[in-house]
């Protein structure tokens, strides 16, 4: 059993590690989405974390746990002054403003000669191992799980459903919005720092709009209303090229067709499963059977 697990891990270790990082990124977006905010700045926060981490490791020789933490902290620190004005915007305008921020950050990195300019940083020591990633992921999942039925969790859900009504009920809407935005930035920063120490390079163009969209895709495909959704989405989309590889005999080209497949999956999910793939688990027939069972039980028990 353990041998089989070990064989599986050695065969798919890159996939497992990248999938874990993508899952963390997807959860970073869950915080804002669960509050009804469509922010596309998390790729930029990830970039801030990656640059912070790589530079602290290579130029300042900080210990690794501190480096990872610093990546998150710096991203979160950037998120506060950004979030205060930007979070007044609603809906699509917030999305546009955060896209704009992301591009400014990316262009800043491209022009930052201290950090290698357009080439980025090369030769970041490999320090991230799978258990770093999964420890962070499990911690995050635990926090999300505890959050869900907490005062803050209910407040987030209330803001998502009706901002004005939540404010009337005494929820400090601005404080919660900034808090989830900053929390998302912190998590994305940590993911960025972990990723930089996983794959040797930090490339400014990896933190642009298309990455922001990728993160959104993980969350949407998996489902945004349950915290486990983004993890499932990230796992599926990350594994997609490997899944496609099984069908090469049918004329599938894993490279170009990855984008095609993820586009089709995304379209199908938003059209038919707006709650994401996790909503399959709450499939109707099962529920009906359960309710009938309860009804029969009650009937047997008598009035």
């Amino acid at each position, binding site marked *: 059993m353990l041998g089989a697990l070990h064989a599986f891990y050695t065969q798919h270790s890159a996939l497992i590690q990248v999938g874990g990082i993508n899952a963390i990124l997807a959860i970073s977006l869950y915080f804002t989405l669960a509050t009804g905010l469509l922010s596309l700045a998390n790729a930029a926060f990830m970039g801030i974390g990656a640059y912070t981490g790589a530079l602290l490791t290579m130029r300042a020789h900080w210990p690794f746990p501190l480096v990872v933490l610093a990546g998150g902290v710096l991203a979160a620190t950037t998120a506060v002054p950004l979030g205060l004005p930007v979070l007044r915007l609603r809906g699509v*305008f917030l999305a546009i403003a955060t896209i704009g921020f992301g591009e400014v950050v990316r262009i800043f990195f491209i022009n930052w000669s201290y950090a290698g300019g357009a080439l980025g940083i090369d030769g970041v020591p490999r320090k991230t191992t799978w258990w770093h990633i999964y420890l962070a992921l499990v911690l995050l999942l635990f926090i999300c799980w505890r959050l869900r039925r907490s005062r803050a969790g209910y407040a987030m859900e209330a803001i998502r459903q009706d901002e004005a009504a939540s404010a009337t009920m005494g929820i400090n809407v601005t404080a919660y919005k900034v808090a989830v935005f900053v929390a998302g930035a912190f998590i994305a920063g940590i993911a960025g720092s972990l990723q930089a120490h996983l794959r040797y390079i930090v490339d400014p163009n990896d933190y642009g709009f298309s990455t922001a969209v990728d993160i*959104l895709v993980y969350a949407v495909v998996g489902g945004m209303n349950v915290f486990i959704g983004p993890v499932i989405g990230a796992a599926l989309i990350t594994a997609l090229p490997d899944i496609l590889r099984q069908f090469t005999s049918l004329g599938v080209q894993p490279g170009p067709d990855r984008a095609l497949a993820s586009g089709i999956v995304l379209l199908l999910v938003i*059209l038919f499963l707006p709650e994401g793939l996790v909503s399959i688990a709450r499939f109707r027939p099962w529920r009906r059977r359960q309710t009938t069972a309860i009804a029969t039980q009650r009937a047997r028990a008598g009035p």
Partner: protein
Amino acid sequence: MAQQIVNGIFAGSIYALFAVGYTLVFGILDILNLAHQAVFMMAAFAALQAVLKWKWNFGPALLFATAIAGVLGILIYYIAYRPLRRRPDTYFSTLISTIAFAAILEALALRWYGARTSRFPLNTFPDHTFHIGSAAFTLLQAVIVAGALVLTLGLQALVRYTRLGKAMRAVAENERAARVLGIDVERVVLVSFAISSALGGIAGVMYGLVYNSVAPGMGHAVELKGLSVIVLGGMGSIPGAVLGGFLLGLVEVASVAQLGSNTRDAVAFIVLFAILLLRPRGLFGRRLVREV
């Protein structure tokens, strides 16, 4: 300096043409069609295919590409918009569905045409250079600026003076009331998608011709700059998008001249950011505050 202004006007006319289509759909439906950039790219490839493979002249190739773009717009309407219009969060779900649509088109382009940059043959458009003072411009550039002006003014006239345009404005104002008054809302929206995409397609062909590069990812830069343009002009405002396009073109060349070429791409987004925070309705926007 005169040359810089000419270049700015010229880049601006493509931004303007791209952005009016963007803003038309936003103005009517309050949704952001992120597949617009993919239509822009597909139209450029369609024109290229007609010129290179089928040896068509440029004129018919442009018409063909425009038609393809219009058809893609209709597909966007049927696939990515109509099934979602009853959802409570239409702006969000259509954002996702148009992103998915764009990803599919881009992947198809990659499959059909490959990742490398393709070019129009040299003699696609008669090469002739004009001089005004110290500034030089080609016949192609002149035609593009004139074409962009004619098309955007034509669109503005259509929206302002025709029956269809009136219907579009009515749907934008209040969809339910428009329906009660007997306007075929579905048809109006469908036609708007087709017109918007056709204009985006023309912009794509012009971009491909003038910068001499057609590639599956060519729409990305223009997409994000187009966002800045429509925010600058005021979301949903056609004159705003045109003016915003030209302004962005000029500001970009000015920043290259004054601050160096690295800052050019940042300018668009700093403008975007400043407008959203200081004057969210842009230059010509209608609404002051968006309701819940």
